[in-house]
């Protein structure tokens, strides 16, 4: 029953994080960018007014953590949606048709895999963010593009492998024998059989994307201020690690919890969706 507990934990964390992200503007006691430069209002410890204290610009840490959830999950969902569409489609085409189509798509993923993911993402994000005069909201797009470009090949590979195995199954031949065209075989016979592995890959992929977004933001080439990201909050707090450890540990804890939640959910689903365990 470890699997069940794992799913329950993962699901709880994910639901809480999604709720925090959706309700951030309502739940947050202050605006995420409401700075307070009056003397003695910065780097405060926990108090009734600021439950988790304030940062070096006097902004409310709790509000920024909640908004950070929104940023992380928005980037995560956006990137995974892109992967889901592109990666699944390319994987299906590659696995089903094989031959030249497969070679072309797989060489493309080989090239992508040849670059270290994070370095390539840093390169792309760095290029896109090289003009500091841009509106900070543009940085969301930059992070999305950087992470989407590096993350789709993973799902494409997984789907391709599964599709290749399925293609050899007799029910695909049987579908062809009743006159089903390729398009129909791909989308009504292969795809539904692949939903399990895809859901698992996307869920664990979320954890990776959220981590990568925070890494980019930590390095300063992710989501730009004033928008809060757990990564940039960790970086901001780094210089006063001993004086105000909460400013590093709180966003780090949120990040760790979220990544753990998605990973647990993904692993738990993998166990549950394993066809060998699904009977009756």
């Amino acid at each position, binding site marked *: 029953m470890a699997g069940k507990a794992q799913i329950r934990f993962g699901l709880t964390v994910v639901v809480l994080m999604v709720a925090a992200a959706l309700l951030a503007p309502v739940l947050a006691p202050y605006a995420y960018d409401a700075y307070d430069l009056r003397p003695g209002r910065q780097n405060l410890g926990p108090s009734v007014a600021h439950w988790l204290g304030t940062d070096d610009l006097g902004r409310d840490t709790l509000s920024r953590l909640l908004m950070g959830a929104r940023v992380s999950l928005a980037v995560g969902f956006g990137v995974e949606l892109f992967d889901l569409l592109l990666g699944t489609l390319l994987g299906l085409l590659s696995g089903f048709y094989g031959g030249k189509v497969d070679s072309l798509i797989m060489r493309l993923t080989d090239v992508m895999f040849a670059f270290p993911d994070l370095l390539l993402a840093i390169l792309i994000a760095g290029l896109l963010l090289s003009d500091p005069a841009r509106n900070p909201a543009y940085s969301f797009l930059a992070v999305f593009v950087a992470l989407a470009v590096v993350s789709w090949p993973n799902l494409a590979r997984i789907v391709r492998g599964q599709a290749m195995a399925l293609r050899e199954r*007799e029910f695909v*031949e*049987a*579908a062809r024998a*009743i*006159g089903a065209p390729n398009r129909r075989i791909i989308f*009504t016979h292969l795809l539904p059989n692949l*939903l399990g592995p895809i859901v698992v890959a996307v869920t664990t992929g979320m954890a990776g994307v959220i981590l990568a977004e925070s890494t980019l933001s930590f390095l300063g080439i992710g989501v730009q201020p004033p928008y809060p990201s757990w990564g940039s909050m960790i970086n901001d707090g780094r210089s006063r690690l001993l004086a105000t450890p909460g400013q590093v540990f709180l966003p780090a804890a949120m990040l760790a919890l979220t990544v753990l939640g998605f990973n647990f959910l993904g692993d738990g689903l993998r166990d549950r969706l394993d066809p060998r365990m699904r009977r009756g």
Partner: protein
Amino acid sequence: MAEPLLSVQDLTVEFGRGKSAVQAVDHVSFEVARGTTVGLVGESGSGKSATALSLLRLLPSPPARVVSGSAYLEGRDLLALSESELRKQRGGTVGFVFQDPLTSLNPVMTVGEQVAEAIRLHTSARRRQAWDRAVEALDRVHIPNAPQRARDYPHQFSGGMRQRVMIAMALASRPKLLLADEPTTALDVTIQAEILDLLSELRQTLGLAILLITHDLGVVSEVCQDVLVMYAGQIVERGPAAELFTSPKHPYTQGLLASLPQVTEGEQLRLQAIQGAPPSLSEPPSGCRFHPRCPKAFAECRVTEPTEVQFSSTRAARCLLYGGGQPEEQLGVPETGSSEWGRPPQRPSMWQ
């Protein structure tokens, strides 16, 4: 005889290209008349499945390739049709039943959906109509409580029931011809009999022609009117089932019949096996392909490839014993008289 429903002429299927090409089906010709069941018998690798699959271009290509031949079904050459025209024939005029019902159904679709899909692909029926007809089709293959069972998934069915579903799928669009590739091999014996009964019943009620591929002579004797025996890619003997079983002409057919286990009183009999193994199709033996294993082989068998000898309009064998020169030298085996297969004439047999 009226014009046959399916007329296959000179069908040759190769796997691979150039020097390494293997002829899995070698100039095969046969006919299937309306409303009859024709058995295509042979060992594994004899090319019987490749023959059937190639008719609907269901072989993986590459490596498989139809090199020559025609297959006229009601005046249309299946082998010359475009992919989209052929798609209308698949499941439309020609149904196909596969060997293994456990893996031939999509595990994530209900069986009703799968039968309905076969209907919707070939008619303009709407979803609701197609579903109703799918339920009818399931009912026709005697699936009890079809309206409810149609909503179940394949894993909720037994092997025999799944094969019934496969047959319902193949017959959903009322095809004229059913290609059944070892439809009972994966099933146990009692279920086999039920499926064979079902096929015979459908043949009669729907006027269906069936090409039944099997390696099981018992199956052939139960349901087939005509039999084709394949060996190493060639048809070596053909004829009406009753004649072929009572007086097999080709030594291979004789060997197959002799190798059937027989229930006798008293004495313990060894199973009569055909010596040796089927030849590799990449290097077929010279002359007659059966000569290395044939107890009646003579010198010429090694060099001359036999042609088909007609005994009557329906009966033929591909063996030098019946034509193409007299044996010049015997290879230690008497040509006539008691056969090397060692079947005493008075032993009761299920064929006599």
